[in-house]
C-alpha cells in the first residue's frame, strides 16, 4: 500500500505552471529596450555636454580676444602707424565683469608667475587661482572661483616683445550644469515615454503574433469537448504542421478504438456461435456428461459476456472528442422497443426538454439507455416513461443531463436495487440472456463521470435515473 502511494506521487509530480510565452517575450524585449534606451540617454547627454562646453568656451574665447585687443595698442592714434605696446586693459565687454564677484572674471599675469598684473573689476582684488599654463599656448579647465563656486577658466599665452603674458577669463558654471541636468531630465523623460511605447508595441505584437496559438488551443479544446471532429488547419506555416500532426493523432486514436471494437466484435462472434452449438447439442442429449457440458457452457457464456463488456469499456476510454445528440438515439431505441415488444401493446412516452448533446460515444448512450428501456419494457404492464432533462451539477459545475426511465411493472425491493447498481456485478450471474443488464449501465455511467440510481416509480414499478455529462443546452 505504501509503495502504491509512493508510486502515485512519483508518477504525478506537482505541475509547476511555466511562465507564459507572451510574458517571456515581453520581458526579454523590455529588458533589452531599457538597456538600449539608457545607453542612448547617456550618449545623448554626453554629446550635449560636450557641445555646451564648446559653446561656453567659444564665448570665453571672445572675451579673451577682447582683453588681448585692449592690451595691445596696435595703432598709433596720432600718426596712424601700427605699433605694438602694452597698455593696461580695462575691459568691460560684459557688465558682469564690472559687478563684484559676479562669477565672471579676467586676469592678466606674466607667464610663470602667479602675480596678477591686471584684473577685471568683478574680482575686487581677490585672486583668481588659475592653474599654471606651463609650455602650452592655451588651456581650459574648472577651478574654484573666489567665492568658492566652480568656474570654467580659459587661459591663453601671448608674447609682447620679449615678455610672455597669460590672459585668463573665467565664468561661473552653475547655469551651464543646470542646463545640462535639465537636458538630461528631458532626455530621460522622453526616453521613458519611448520605452513605455515600445513595451506596449511589443506587447501588442506578441499578442497578435501568438493569436494563432490561442486559436489552436481553442480548436483543440473544441475537439476534446466533442464540439468539433478535427483541428482547424488554416494556421500560419510555423504551427500548421502541429495542427496536422494533432489531427493525425486524433484519427489514429479513433482507428485504434475502432480496431479494438472490431476485435471484440469478432471475438464475440467467434466464441458465441460455437458456444450456441455446444450448449444446444448438450441440451438435446441426455446423461451426466450432457448436463455437465450444458452447465459449463452456461458458465463460459456468462464469463465471455462479462469480459467482452469490460474489453469494450477499456477501448472506450481512449476516444477523444466525440459527442452526439440524445434525441435521435433515444427515439431510434424507442422505435426498436415498440417493434420488439409490440405483443405487449406498451405505451412508451418520450419527453426531452430542449436539444441535448451527450459528451461521449453514441454507442455508449445507446447501450446504457437501451438496457434501461429494454428492462422497463420487459417488466412493464402497460406503461413506460422516458424523460430527458438537462441540469447543472453544482458540485462539479458541469453541464449534465438526466435520463429517467420508469415502468409500471413489479419493481425491485430496496435490497435488490442496491445489488443491481453495484458496478462490475450481474444480478443474473447464472442466467444468460435474461438479465437486467444494469451493472453495465452503472459501469459505463461511472466511466463518463455520471451516476446511476434505482428507486421506486410513481407509476408503480422501477425508476432508473442515469446522469451523464452534456455539452450544455443549445
Amino acid at each position, binding site marked *: 500500500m505504501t509503495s502504491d502511494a509512493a508510486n502515485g506521487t512519483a508518477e504525478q509530480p506537482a505541475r509547476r505552471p511555466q511562465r507564459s510565452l507572451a510574458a517571456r517575450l515581453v520581458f526579454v524585449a523590455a529588458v533589452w529596450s531599457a538597456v538600449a534606451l539608457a545607453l542612448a540617454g547617456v550618449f545623448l547627454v554626453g554629446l550635449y555636454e560636450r557641445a555646451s562646453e564648446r559653446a561656453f568656451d567659444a564665448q570665453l574665447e571672445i572675451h579673451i580676444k577682447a582683453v588681448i585687443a585692449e592690451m595691445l595698442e596696435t595703432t598709433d592714434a596720432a600718426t596712424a602707424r601700427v605699433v605694438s605696446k602694452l597698455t593696461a586693459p580695462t575691459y568691460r565687454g560684459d557688465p558682469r565683469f564690472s559687478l563684484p564677484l559676479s562669477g565672471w572674471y579676467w586676469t592678466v599675469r606674466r607667464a610663470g608667475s602667479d602675480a596678477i598684473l591686471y584684473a577685471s573689476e568683478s574680482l575686487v582684488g581677490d585672486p583668481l587661482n588659475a592653474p599654471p599654463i606651463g609650455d602650452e599656448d592655451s588651456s581650459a579647465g574648472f577651478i574654484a572661483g573666489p567665492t568658492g563656486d566652480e568656474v570654467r577658466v580659459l587661459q591663453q599665452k601671448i608674447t609682447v616683445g620679449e615678455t610672455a603674458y597669460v590672459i585668463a577669463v573665467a565664468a561661473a558654471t552653475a547655469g551651464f550644469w543646470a542646463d545640462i541636468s535639465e537636458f538630461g531630465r528631458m532626455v530621460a523623460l522622453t526616453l521613458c515615454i519611448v520605452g513605455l511605447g515600445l513595451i506596449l508595441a511589443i506587447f501588442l505584437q506578441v499578442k497578435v503574433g501568438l493569436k494563432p496559438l490561442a486559436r489552436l488551443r481553442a480548436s483543440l479544446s473544441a475537439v476534446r469537448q466533442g464540439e468539433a471532429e478535427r483541428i482547424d488547419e488554416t494556421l500560419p506555416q510555423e504551427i500548421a504542421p502541429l495542427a496536422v500532426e494533432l489531427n493525425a493523432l486524433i484519427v489514429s486514436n479513433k482507428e485504434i478504438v475502432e480496431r479494438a471494437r472490431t476485435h471484440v466484435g469478432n471475438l*464475440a462472434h*467467434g466464441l*458465441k*456461435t460455437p458456444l450456441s452449438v455446444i450448449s*444446444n447439442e448438450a441440451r438435446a442429449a441426455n446423461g451426466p456428461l450432457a448436463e455437465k457440458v450444458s452447465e459449463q457452457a452456461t458458465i463460459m457464456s456468462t464469463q465471455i459476456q462479462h469480459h467482452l463488456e469490460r474489453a*469494450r469499456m477499456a477501448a472506450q476510454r481512449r476516444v477523444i472528442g466525440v459527442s452526439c445528440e440524445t434525441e435521435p438515439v433515444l427515439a431510434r431505441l424507442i*422505435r426498436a422497443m415498440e*417493434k420488439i415488444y409490440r405483443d405487449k401493446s406498451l405505451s412508451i412516452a418520450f419527453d426531452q426538454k430542449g436539444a441535448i448533446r451527450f459528451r461521449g460515444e453514441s454507442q455508449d448512450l445507446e447501450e446504457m439507455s*437501451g438496457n434501461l428501456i429494454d428492462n422497463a419494457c420487459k417488466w412493464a404492464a402497460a406503461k413506460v416513461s422516458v424523460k430527458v432533462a438537462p441540469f447543472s451539477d453544482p458540485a462539479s459545475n458541469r453541464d449534465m443531463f438526466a435520463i429517467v426511465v420508469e415502468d409500471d411493472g413489479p419493481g425491485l425491493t430496496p435490497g435488490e436495487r442496491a445489488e443491481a447498481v453495484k458496478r462490475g456485478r450481474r444480478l443474473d450471474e447464472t442466467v*444468460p440472456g435474461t438479465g437486467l443488464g444494469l451493472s453495465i449501465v452503472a459501469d459505463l455511467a461511472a466511466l463518463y463521470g455520471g451516476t446511476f440510481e434505482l428507486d421506486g416509480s410513481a407509476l408503480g414499478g422501477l425508476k432508473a435515473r442515469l446522469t451523464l455529462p452534456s455539452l450544455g443546452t443549445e
Partner: protein
Amino acid sequence: MRILVVEDDTDLNRQLVTALEEAGYVVDSATDGEDGHFLGDTEPYDAVVLDLGLPTLDGLSVLENWRRDGRTMPVLILTARDRWSDKVAGIDAGADDYVAKPFHMEEVLARVRALVRRAAGHASNELTCGPVRLDLRAGRVTVDGTPIKLTSHEYRLLSYLLHHQGKVISRTELTEHLYDQDFDRDSNTVEVFVGRLRKKIGSDLIETIRGLGYRLGAAGDE
C-alpha cells in the same frame, strides 16, 4: 409453414434446421449471404432466421435488400454482436426481432412461433376454428377437447390453414409453404393430405373453392 435459416456455422445451421423441423416447420437453409438472399428473394417464406455475420454478403445487407425489394416476411436476426447499437441497426434495417448468441433453441423456436403468428394477425399461441384447437407451443391439436394424432405433413397443412383461416389458399400457395424448394410442385399430394385431414377434424371445416383452392372457416371468422 416454411422457414428459411441463413447461418454460416454448419453445426448451428443443422441444429436450427433440425429443431425447426421437429417443431413442424418446413425448413430451407443457406450458409452464406448471397444464397440466403437469393432464396428469400425467390421463395415465399413464413419467417426467416438470419445470422448477421455471414460470408459473401452480411446479414444486414441481405435484410436491407429484401426490404427494399418489397419482401415483407418476418425476420428474426441472430447476432453475437449484442450491443444495443447492433440490435437497433438490425431492427432499423427491417428485422422484426433479435436473439443474441449464445441462445437456447427454445428461445429461437418461441420467437419464430411469435413472428409467424403475428404476421398472420393472431395474438394468441392457440389457434381455433370451430371445434379444432391448435396449441402452437405444444404442437398439439384437439377436436372438441379430444387430442388427435396428425402426421407432420397434416400438422403443417392444418397450421397453415389455421394461420390464414377465412382466406382462400391456392394449391400452389399450399405447396410452396408446406414443402421445401426441392419438392415436385406438379404432384397432387396436397389433395391427398387435405382429404386425410378432413377425415380427422371433420369434413365440413375445410371448404374446396372450385378453381381457386381451399378455405378453412368462413371469411372473417377467427
